[in-house]
């Protein structure tokens, strides 16, 4: 088994933390091997954000994801750039608040209203999207049978300091529920 994930979006959404927690859940929760890399740089200032995660039950040598099995895009720019790379039979996950899809041919496409969900959860003015990344992971755990919700739950507990833990667990939970209710799994 080897699965390649590409998490992408803009700075501030926390997609890199999402990738990291996801990989940790695979390692500590599922006993799998995982490698995570990300793009650094001045671009990371307010610009685009990208992280690659490979999860496998064997050694992983080349650590970059050139062609993802699963592509997650939380920005139009990321979608425009990465969606052509998805492997045949792969999945592209987007949030319709951020991304208008145009790519249809090679990959299955799933739209998940993460933004809407998290805004509702945060009960805010529509501007606070804190937790959207954990919400994404909750959804992912339902969509891609690699990392279980329990492993993710543990990974979140492990990663966040006490004062942020609860909030993130809620967001995770919201993501799980969201998929159960609103997205058809495959």
């Amino acid at each position, binding site marked *: 088994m080897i699965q390649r994930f590409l998490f992408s979006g803009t*700075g*501030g959404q926390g997609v890199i933390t999402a990738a990291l927690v996801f990989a940790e859940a695979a390692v500590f929760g599922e006993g799998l091997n995982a490698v995570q890399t990300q793009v650094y740089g*001045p*671009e990371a*200032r*307010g*610009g685009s954000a990208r992280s690659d995660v490979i999860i496998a039950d064997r050694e992983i040598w080349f650590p970059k994801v050139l062609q993802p099995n699963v592509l997650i895009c939380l920005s139009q720019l990321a979608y425009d750039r990465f969606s052509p790379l998805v492997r045949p039979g792969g999945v592209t996950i987007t949030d319709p608040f951020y991304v208008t899809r145009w790519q249809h041919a090679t990959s299955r496409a799933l739209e998940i209203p993460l933004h809407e969900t998290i805004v509702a959860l945060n009960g805010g003015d529509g501007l606070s999207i804190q937790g959207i990344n954990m919400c994404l992971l909750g959804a992912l755990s339902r969509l891609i049978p690699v990392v279980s919700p329990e492993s993710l739950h543990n990974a979140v507990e492990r990663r966040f300091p006490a004062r942020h833990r609860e909030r993130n667990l809620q967001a995770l939970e919201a993501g799980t529920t969201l998929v159960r209710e609103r997205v058809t799994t495959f």
Partner: protein
Amino acid sequence: MAVTDYLRRRFMPHIWCPGCGHGIVLNSLLRAIEKLELEKNDIVMISGIGCSARIQGYVDFHTMHTLHGRALAFATGIKMAWPLLKVIVPMGDGDALAIGGNHFIHAARRNIDVTAIIMNNSIYGMTGGQHSPLTPCGDQATTAPYGTVDSPFDVVRLASAAGASFIARTTTYHAREMTRLLAAAIEHRGFSVVEVLSQCPTYYGRKNDAGDAVAMMEGFRDGTVRIDRKTAETSDGDPGRLDGEAAGTPIGLFRREERPEYCEAYRRRVVEPAMAAGRGESETP
């Protein structure tokens, strides 16, 4: 010219994070230059490395992005070689005073006609939130998880002791004053230093629970006291220390004094006599 006409618009929006104070410095600086009605071609901007240093990419002047901490050394060469240019050097607090501290004090000592803008966000922004020589003692940073133990420099006092002939401090909250001070600094003949307290909400703010950009700017508004230049200069000659210090960080113009400018001194006291004397036949130096 409109302010945005001084921009290289094709690179906008810039790379800085939302609410980054460096953008306000850019904003004020362009207004100062507009006010002075300078030609784009008369201005050279030399920066080092850091978020602050990236300002040079956005201004439509002659621009040079150099090495971390070394901008003033590059600027010294440029200014000496072409004294008619207006040379502006934007610097981060790390750039100016950590790795670049020596060039800073020496430029001040020489009183070379360069304007140094120190964009002080109390943190290394570009590399992700390490403490700088201007981080207040006790503050959090990625390399100070238990709080910094280092004491910060006071830029005004250091610049003063080193010999800068124009010294001011302001904040991004005081954007109008910043424009005025930057204009005065650029006009000043000699080494001018303008320290601008600038917010880095992404690292300094987050690490120190200082809130968002707005909260940090409110901090600048409430945590500073304006000095009267005359008072500052006559009371004790030490522009950094104010009786009002307890009340907050002093801001305003601390020094504006006439001292021989370096390029000018070199021309008058070295080049002109040497050229006049011509070359002695067999006389060695």
